[in-house]
């Protein structure tokens, strides 16, 4: 069952490389949140009520509802462009994400540790690498935020892989990380929204060929 979610997650990464619409980014992040929930849920050996609630809040509530909702608010509030054109053409991004996935799958095959759920490494590595690539590839701060969240999702999966039971502390840290990151960047975006937006429009008209 786990593998199913891993594969869906891999496909979301491909779609990330493929899309240029900001709305789609947010939507994909939300999907990833649900997928992560599925992963955690199906890998849990015995479900404790506390764990369950925690997972529910972290994945479903935070990752797939609150964060996307917040991002959408930021997007609308700042009247961001609908399209963030990446600096590397999408065609190449798709190829790069394929190669990343292959690399990441092969790497996790080579991690021989019975203590760890190496299955999660497959997409976790890919997610982290792709997140960095995503940030490099986009000029827009909002998209950097999205890239950052992709990396966070990767780290979340690594934390899943490391612990046999729920590593509460690690998750808590991850959760805090997200909240902090969002807050800082969200405030930043809201502040600079107006000046930043006019710049970006100019930039985009120039980019258009």
């Amino acid at each position, binding site marked *: 069952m786990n593998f199913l979610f891993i594969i869906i997650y891999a496909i979301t990464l491909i779609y990330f490389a493929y899309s240029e619409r900001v709305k789609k980014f947010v939507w994909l992040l939300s999907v990833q949140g649900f997928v992560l929930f599925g992963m955690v849920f199906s890998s849990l050996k015995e479900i404790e009520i506390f764990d369950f609630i925690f997972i529910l809040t972290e994945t479903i509530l935070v990752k797939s509802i609150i964060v996307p909702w917040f991002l959408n608010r930021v997007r609308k509030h700042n009247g961001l462009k609908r399209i963030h054109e990446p600096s590397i*053409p999408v*065609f*190449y991004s798709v190829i790069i994400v394929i190669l990343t996935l*292959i690399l990441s799958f*092969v790497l996790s*095959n080579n991690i021989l540790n019975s203590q760890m759920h190496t299955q999660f490494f497959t997409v976790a590595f890919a997610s982290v690498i792709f997140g960095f690539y995503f940030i490099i590839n986009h000029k827009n701060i909002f998209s950097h935020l999205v890239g950052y969240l992709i990396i966070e999702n990767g780290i979340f999966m690594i934390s899943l892989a490391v612990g046999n039971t729920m590593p509460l502390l690690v998750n808590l840290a991850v959760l805090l990380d997200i909240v902090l990151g969002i807050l800082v960047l969200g405030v930043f975006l809201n502040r600079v929204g107006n000046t930043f937006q006019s710049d970006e429009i100019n930039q985009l008209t120039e980019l258009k060929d």
Partner: protein
Amino acid sequence: MQIVLIGITSFWAIQAFATSNLIEFPFIYVLGNSISLSIDKLSAFFILVINFTSLTGLIYARGYLKPYLPKKNSTEIAFHYFNFLWLHISMLLVVMIRDALAFLIAWEIMSLVSFFLVIFESEKKETVKIGLKYLIQMHIGVVFLMIAFIIAYVQTGAAFSFDGLSVYFTSYHPFPLFLLFFIGFGIKAGFIPLHSWLPHAHPAAPSHVSGVMSGVMIKMGIYGILRVLSYIHTDLFGSGLFVLIISLVSGIIGVSFAIVQHDVKKLLAYHSIENIGIIGIGIGLGIIGLSQNMPVLAVLGFGGGILHILNHSLFKSLLFYTAGSVYKQTHTRNIEQLGGLIKKMPKTALFFLLGALAISGLPPFNGFISEFLIYSGMFQSLQTADLSVDIILLLSFSGLAIIGGLAIFCFTKVFSIIFLGTGRSDKTKNVTEVEPVMIVPDFLIGFFILLIGMGSFIIVQPLMNVVAIFTDNASILSEMTPVFNKISLSSGIFISIIGIIWILRAWQQKRHQVSVNDTWGCGYTGANPALHQYTATSYADNFAHISSKLVNVKKEYRDFTSDEIFPNERSFETHSSDIIENILVTKPANKILEFLNKIAVFQTGNIQHYLLYALVFMIIIGLLTYFNWI
């Protein structure tokens, strides 16, 4: 003279195929050492390929050189034929000699005479420059080969010959030496990034020479690599992976560069790189198959690669000959100025189409058979391979599929721009079909293309013989016989259905009115039809756009400014440059030139002099090494 040579060597080669033994006899005595010619199956295969293409080249040259006869004096023409003969001889020697020194000499002769062949039109300064560039790069290759042989000799003390290599390879890790050999031979073969001479030399040379050079001479590099490989039996994986990756890169980049060319012969030259890539993919997979103990992959990989050597020699020489015919009649290699030639040169056009279909790897022609072998090898090995090989296979067959697709893209472009539609310039006005002597080789080659394509089962046995040099399980190839029979059957049905429908249509159209009218142009009657056709640049632009990072097409064009409501006059031109050549050759060469400029003593301001210095330097090194070990 040449015919006799062809006769004798072909006889030997066929004999070599027929008997299981190695044919060996003394050839020449150098400094007291007897150097013998030895023909095994691999040599025999190459001899046949060399002989066939040289024969067709010779016939073609009769027609092609005619316009030059009044311009050149008889000595020059004689010299040209002399060189052509010696190119042939030297190639034959290369595949027959095992002794390293003699081999290198034959190799040198081959480079030298081909240099003279390339600069046939030496009145053009550019041609001489290209020729020198070619010669220099060949010498760099020789240096690598020499070093490799010397290392093997010094380390083991065995014979200074190919046979001596086996001793080295059993006792040392083979990869470093293989790498040296690969670079040495790879320059000849034109693997990317060692290819930079190739796209210049082929267009500069007369077409029969380009046909022979591209058809067989660059295969001497492959021969060398195969020969060296036949002595390596351990630790092959690294070498195989290396060959495979270089080949994939050569294939994809070669064909990508080909797409953006306007010069038909340069385009074909880049296709040679692509096809060397396909051959290399086969060989690389073969090596990996050997190292991983996967007989199917090894046999089908080597089989496909080696068969593709033959196939490529066939269709590439055909393409060069037909392109040469077009050049001869129109005096331009720039395809943007051509168009509509199929009505004026129907035979040439159809043979070019045959070559184009074959090189694109389409059934029922020969290119498909070799690619099919490689594909089957890959797909059949998927299950048995381990993870890393599976990933390699994944990359290889995707790469091969992309190469195939791009080749189709490129040849639809080049064929339709040259031969279809209406003429794009005055150069196509008074064109006629070439004389029969230039068509004869096309018929010969076309016959073999169809023979291999439709009757592929006949090549199984000979191919098995050659592959047996590399692996013990060559008999796996015989399992392909029923498959090849099915392919022939399918192709047969395919062609007969085409025939049936053609007859049906003729019958149907006899009963209804068939008329001829202008191409639909939205009812606009004032248009100039030549202007409204797609151009080669436009056709390639689609691809050049997505591969902009790779092919580097530069536009010489001023965009309309936003306040330029009523546009001013302007012109548009594109140039593509070879990025790899820029990085590896042009830029360092410029750096060196800058450096040399600073050394006032040598500064003559003439590039030829620098090249000469380099040449002298290389000869000195050669001599030094020679005297060292004797």
